[in-house]
């Protein structure tokens, strides 16, 4: 890969205060794939991070999402599946703690602007004190993704904490 030519930072957010959602909007359709790197801490009691996609600035909150999870807890390994949900699960056991630096998640969203296909996202979430997850999410829409919103807990009922970082990269095939 020619350095810098195909892996471009689109936007980055370091939270200056606690917030329940983080949104990347107006994502240009000039790339092929997207990568999001999240290093978050969330308030106590959160059981997961969720995310949704949108087009035209409108987040799809309908039951158009599914998630498959492969997880390891440190003592058990397993898989979990949910379909026809209103969100994609970003994690299952690797839920961030309330301490900054304790979690890392990397999302890859393929062909995000292809209007002929539904959208698939791969994710690896890591929280050494909780678990290790690999997830696959599906958005059953042929609309191009121009908005991504992350939620701390179900529908953002907890907070991402100050200092959490979210960075969106675009990867171009040519």
């Amino acid at each position, binding site marked *: *890969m020619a*350095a*810098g*030519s*195909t*892996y*471009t*930072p689109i936007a*980055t957010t370091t939270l200056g205060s606690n917030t329940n959602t983080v949104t990347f909007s107006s994502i240009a359709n000039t790339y092929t794939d997207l990568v999001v*790197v999240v*290093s978050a801490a969330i308030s106590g009691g959160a059981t997961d991070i969720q995310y949704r996609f949108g087009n035209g600035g409108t987040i799809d909150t309908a039951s158009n999402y599914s998630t498959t999870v*492969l*997880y*390891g*807890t*440190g*003592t*058990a*390994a397993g898989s979990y599946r949910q379909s026809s949900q209103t969100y994609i699960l970003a994690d299952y056991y*690797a839920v961030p703690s309330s*301490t*900054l*630096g*304790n*979690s*890392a*998640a*990397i999302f890859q969203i393929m062909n995000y602007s292809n209007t002929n296909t539904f959208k698939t996202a791969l994710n*690896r*979430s*890591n*929280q*050494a*004190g*909780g*678990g*290790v997850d*690999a997830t696959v999410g599906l958005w059953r829409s042929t609309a191009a993704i121009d908005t991504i919103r992350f939620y701390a807990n179900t529908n953002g009922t907890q907070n991402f904490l100050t*200092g959490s*970082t979210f*960075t969106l*990269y675009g990867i171009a095939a040519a």
Partner: protein
Amino acid sequence: MANTYTLIEAKTLGSAVSSVTFSSIPSTYTDLLLKVSVRSSTTNDWIGLYFNGSTANVSGRIIQGTGSGVSSSTSNPAIQAILSDSSSFTASTFGNAEVYIPNYTSNNAKSFSIDTVTENNAATAYMQLLAGLWNPATQAAITSITLVASSGDMAINSTFYLYGISNS
């Protein structure tokens, strides 16, 4: 266009060695990405990974598949982080790994992600996902990464590529 995905250093082993260190890692990037292709000169199949010269204060959880089963356990990434093709595995096959370290210069603990596999023309090969954490008593930017064979040496032609990724 911004130079956001930059090769910091590449190493290809010309002879078997027990450890490889990337030192003096600049603080000018946001994240680090390490790509490894490694084979062992002995029956060892683990490579440990640690930061800033200290094997202390690292922890991890793994999920591993063998081709016939799956399990999860806690691990010490300083000893067991990356899968290496053992010398008993099919000749010329190498273990591969990708290590991603966000915010490596922060003053917080450093969480990292490892996906690693072996390949082997036999019934058993391994795939592992690891959630790692380096949490020293005094937080510091990562300035060096050491990979060390749990026993014996890493074989000739093993490769190690360290990239820096910038968010601006």
